[in-house]
């Protein structure tokens, strides 16, 4: 079955991060796939132009078939190395420098999760590292809790976007932090990318509908039985969500609106 043909005309509605334009608002992770070919096929199907990979997984000595970078070598795909495995700001800064040198990019997904169980990001270390890395010329995209104040603090030190979590990473639970994401989106001067927890295309669509600028998805695609088809489903969902956002959704009513019980007394006879 083909899912890629659309009858609508694609709007020119690029996402701009640090001066760089993206047509796709879907970012992908490269972990958890059964093999590199499957990963490549899913990424291509998703239309994603920004993919993140853990520095700790890349073997720079490996020039053979197992070299993950070979499979990401497409003109439209930009690499976003991440610092997964770092437990402190110092470790993350070290990893960032290593990534910049090895991959020739100053883009960085800053991840500091000292808790190996739930991979909860460390707000204090992340802010500290972000400040330093921005000074060193990195384009920093920090993975953080859906904490509106932290987002403003990160914005103030010069991050290029914020990446609040929707739910614990890898949980597929969807937008559990909805109320806080709404505040973040409302207040942010930098793009908001919902990262972690997005387990279904409907979650991604919901994030874009509410005004998130993009989403990052990994587990839901990589672990799907048919990851290429799932990647396509996410592509469509993200586009739909964004279109709906641009088209302005109607307000949600919690219950039917009754006549005017509180203002009835203002009405004059016969009105």
């Amino acid at each position, binding site marked *: 079955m083909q899912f890629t043909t659309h009858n609508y005309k694609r709007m020119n509605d690029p996402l701009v991060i640090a001066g760089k334009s993206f047509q796709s608002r879907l970012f992908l992770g490269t*972990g*958890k796939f*059964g093999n590199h070919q499957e990963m490549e096929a899913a990424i291509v199907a998703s239309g994603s132009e920004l993919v993140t990979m853990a520095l700790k997984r*890349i073997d720079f000595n490996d020039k053979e078939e197992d070299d993950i970078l070979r499979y990401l070598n497409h003109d439209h795909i930009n690499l976003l190395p991440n610092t997964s495995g770092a437990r402190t700001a110092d*470790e993350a800064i070290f990893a960032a420098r290593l990534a910049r040198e090895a991959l020739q990019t100053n883009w960085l997904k800053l991840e500091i999760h000292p808790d190996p*169980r739930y991979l909860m990001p460390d707000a204090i270390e992340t802010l500290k590292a972000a400040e330093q890395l921005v000074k060193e010329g990195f384009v920093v995209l920090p993975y953080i809790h859906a904490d509106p104040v932290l987002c403003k603090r990160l914005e103030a030190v010069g991050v290029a976007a914020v990446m609040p979590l929707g739910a614990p990473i890898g949980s597929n639970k969807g937008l559990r932090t909805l109320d806080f994401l709404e505040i973040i989106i409302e207040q942010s001067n930098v793009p908001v990318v919902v990262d972690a927890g997005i387990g279904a295309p409907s979650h991604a669509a919901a994030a874009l509908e509410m005004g998130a600028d993009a989403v990052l998805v990994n587990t839901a695609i990589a*672990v799907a039985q048919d990851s290429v088809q799932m990647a396509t489903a996410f592509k469509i969902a993200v586009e739909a969500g964004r279109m709906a956002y641009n088209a302005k959704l109607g307000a949600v009513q919690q219950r039917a609106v009754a006549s005017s019980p509180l203002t009835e007394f203002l009405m004059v006879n016969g009105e």
Partner: protein
Amino acid sequence: MFDHIFNQHSWHDVQSSIYSKTAGEVELALRKSKRDIEDFKALISPAAAPYLEQMAQLSAALTQKRFGKTVQLYVPLYLSNECQNICTYCGFSYDNKIKRKTLSSFEILQEAEYLKQQGFEHVLLVTGEANKTVGLDYFQKAIRLLRPHFRNISIEVQPLDANEYAALTQEGLHAVLVYQETYNKEHYKDYHPKGKKSNFDYRLETPDRLGTANIHKIGLGVLMGLEDWRTDNFFTALHLSYLEKQYWQTRYSISFPRLRPAEGLIEPKVVINDRELTQLICAWRIFREELELSISTRESQSFRDNIIRLGITSMSAGSATNPGGYVTEPESLEQFCIDDNRSPAVVAAMIKEQGYTPVWKDWTAFS
């Protein structure tokens, strides 16, 4: 320290509580989204045996969600079989009158070069316990030698003091595996009649010392074949639950060594069969979806091939269990006979055939 919690549990009471778990408790454990230690008891109990397929399905799904379709590969590098302990199940036991061997720096590098050629980036250094010749200095030297060649270095050696662990962490040590062998304190002495290892409490407190030293990863486990495996695994889970809260920045892994034939040794007192071992592995996964679960070449080819999908996330391949076993002295005394003799390349090909990615490297030191 864990001994406070440990001492509140009697082996006998725990054992009878596991054996009196009911089908209803198993079903409840399977339905929950977070499981506690009582649920774990139910999952490892005889009452869970009829639910094996259901457990396997759940375990497979949880593992894929967390780890994706990947299996990490590592290899043991035996450095020494000198040992001052008598352990009734181990080929390196002091009373085993065989020639002892400790690798020199040159020999360590020889072995390392061979393992690098096989593709390994994660290496586990193993020794007996001979504190004078194979102590902190020796380990420091070995890690310094190997660090340029491997991305991830773990050790499985005698328990050390906290400051010694801290010193090795400084050298770039990533993980320490320390198995209690059995949590049955009464019978522990029977298996470890002589040597430093006969001190049950010092061994029991080792993960605390590791946590204090802020090591990245601690590996736990018991040797199955000594005492009732269900009760021993309950205590392992109890130990883990304590450590998780205490040392929350540490990663944990669980191994499932079954007693293997070795030179001059006891027969297993209790046997855990393949079906029970599968139940145990699935129970661990359902209990804690983020745990690294590891299986060695002690197990057979067919068991290893099939267990990957069910929850195992890390395995060794092409192992030799004797010092110098790869290149320098292939005929030296081995710790135990391995079962799966396939080369790392063949094991990696098998993993790929199942639609999984063999992961040779999953670590870079960020300092």
